[in-house]
């Protein structure tokens, strides 16, 4: 899945990869694609995770893991970093999700469990700020309930912000409240249509 996301990120993009699974996307971005990674704690030009002697507790990613810096990197403070995000300067951000609606609404910060301790971090800023938001998630949760939904029932992170959804079974493009299936993995558009509670259309990726 990370490989597909990496494939679809345009060369030369400025990209923020969310905590968890999205960080794997970095492994599939060849250096000649000139993608520059942003980490919202205050850096552009982030390199791979640090190992051994390269580990510096002052150099971490948004998941608080030690990382490295690439030539052409820069550091900036939090207000500048989030201005960069909110101001629409990032081309792509990739995040996980609990639910995505057909309108592109994103729910990924809270399950709605009243006993849960809430934590939001930079998810809402990324959702509204990046020019395009890609989501990576399993298409169904453990109970078989679809996570691509007509309307999110979990607390929202952002409205109408997601444009592509990468899942274990298919890749979706969301546009004008329509859901296009652009790739399937071991399933068919018809089968997906029957298992999801949202109408889906077969559609190729635009060039």
């Amino acid at each position, binding site marked *: 899945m990370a490989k597909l996301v990496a494939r679809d990120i345009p060369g030369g993009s400025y990209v923020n990869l969310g905590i968890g699974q999205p960080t794997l996307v970095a492994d599939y971005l060849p250096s000649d694609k000139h993608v520059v990674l942003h980490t919202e704690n205050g850096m552009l030009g982030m390199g791979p995770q640090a190992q051994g002697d390269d580990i510096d507790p002052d150099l971490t990613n948004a998941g608080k893991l030690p990382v490295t810096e690439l030539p052409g990197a820069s550091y900036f403070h939090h207000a500048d970093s989030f201005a960069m995000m909110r101001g629409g300067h990032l081309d792509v951000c990739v995040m996980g999700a609990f639910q995505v609606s057909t309108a592109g*609404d994103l729910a990924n910060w809270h399950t709605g469990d009243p006993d849960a301790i809430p934590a939001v971090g930079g998810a809402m800023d990324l959702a509204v700020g990046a020019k395009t938001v890609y989501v990576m998630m399993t298409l169904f949760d453990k109970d078989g309930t679809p996570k691509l939904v007509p309307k999110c029932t979990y*607390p*929202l992170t952002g409205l109408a912000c997601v444009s592509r959804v990468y899942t274990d079974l298919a890749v979706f493009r969301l546009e004008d409240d329509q859901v296009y299936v652009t790739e399937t993995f071991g399933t068919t558009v018809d089968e997906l249509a029957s298992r999801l509670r949202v109408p889906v259309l077969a559609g190729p990726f635009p060039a």
Partner: protein
Amino acid sequence: MIEVCGDAEAALRDLRDGATVLVGGFGEAGLPFGLLDGLLRCDAAGLTVVSNNAGNGDSGLAAVLATGRVRKIICSYPRQVDSWVFDRLYREGKIELELVPQGNLAERIRAAGAGIGGFYTPTGVGTPLAAGKEVRNIAGCDYILELPIHGDVALIRADTADEAGNLTYRKTARNFGPIMATAAKVTVAEVNRVVPAGAIDPENVVTPGIFVNRVVLAVGTAKAGSARSGSRETTR
């Protein structure tokens, strides 16, 4: 001209009950461990802490929370795998939480330092975190009104201070330091070294000395982000 304090307690001497304390750091990078240790030895209670996280493990901010002297925390990401101190206090109703999206938190702190009365942000619109906040449509987009967060004291971690109070930072440990320094009545920076005025290239100053009141040298702690002890290269 800054005051170089001998220890964290001296730097925190005027902390009062009910004060709002801005604490730099993102995770452990940029967390002022020495100042937080000093805070443990202060009497001030009923504090409001503003920080991105709500403490990890049992040291640093978590140790401060464990004293019960923090009434409220304003942060973006309290829940972490090792945030058990906060988790317990929260579940027991012993600490109030104001959850703020990270960018709004940063911008509210900046606004306080910049004399801005409030600002309209798109972040959080349509979400539960916008509850009770004014929504306004400007040029076709919805925004919510957010207000500044002022601090009585800011406790930040920097790399080098010069004797004029100018600061530089190290890598992503910069995070909240530069904005918190602007937003508090008194800013205390924990640094790795103090150098003479002029030793930092004026082009490379990140926090100008006008925002810094006191400096303490970092002491090596097992968990400190920049663990090496501080040094005073020279005095005026």
